[in-house]
């Protein structure tokens, strides 16, 4: 799975019947491991009622077909969950001998209040100790 942010929504009336009424979201991935999806944006089905601005977990490839109700759905990306909180230890990657680390970890700005976003950002980018 990957992390991404919902940046838009797509409406399509003429669609494959197997897609049913699945909601389609435009996701901007924070990081991608699958070359086939290495674009700036991807479109994913959504079963968990995510909205624009939400940080989400996206499932890629064949397992995403479980979304929208079946194994025969023409789907290769599906939103699996909405991120509440993220602990990300950037400092661990910067430890001696750990290699170059992740370049540009990504902006941790969860959709909640500015306060929680600040905490998440501090924990992630500053590498503060986990609770």
């Amino acid at each position: 799975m990957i992390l991404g942010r919902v940046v838009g929504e797509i409406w399509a009336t003429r669609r494959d019947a197997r897609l049913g009424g699945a909601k389609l979201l435009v996701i901007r991935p924070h990081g991608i491991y699958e070359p086939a999806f290495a674009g700036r944006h991807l479109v994913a089905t959504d079963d968990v009622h995510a909205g624009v601005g939400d940080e989400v977990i996206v499932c890629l490839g064949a397992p995403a077909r479980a979304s929208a109700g079946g194994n025969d759905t023409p789907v290769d990306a599906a939103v699996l969950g909405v991120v509440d909180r993220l602990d990300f230890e950037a400092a661990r990657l910067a430890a001696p001998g750990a290699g170059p680390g992740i370049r540009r970890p990504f902006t941790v700005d969860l959709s909640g209040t500015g306060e929680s976003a600040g905490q998440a950002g501090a924990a992630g980018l500053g590498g503060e100790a986990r609770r």
Partner: protein
Amino acid sequence: MIRGKVVGQVWATRKARGLDGQKLLLVAAQDAQGAPNGRLIVAVDVLDAHSGEDVTVAFGSGARNVLRPGPENRDLLCDAAVAAIVEGAG
């Protein structure tokens, strides 16, 4: 599978069915030399790996077998799962 290092954890209350209560880890993928290659993965963890530990992550359909082995697991929305916690490598 790939090797990676656990660098964090993700909490999501609203999750797809079948993933309730499952722990989600942030894993930084590593290259052959063990250095992070810049890719971040969210993986389901049933082995209770902790931050800082090296793990192997299974991708694709095989990852569903970690949650529920067998042919009846196709309804699971999971494409990455921790398959093993690395103790040593030669």
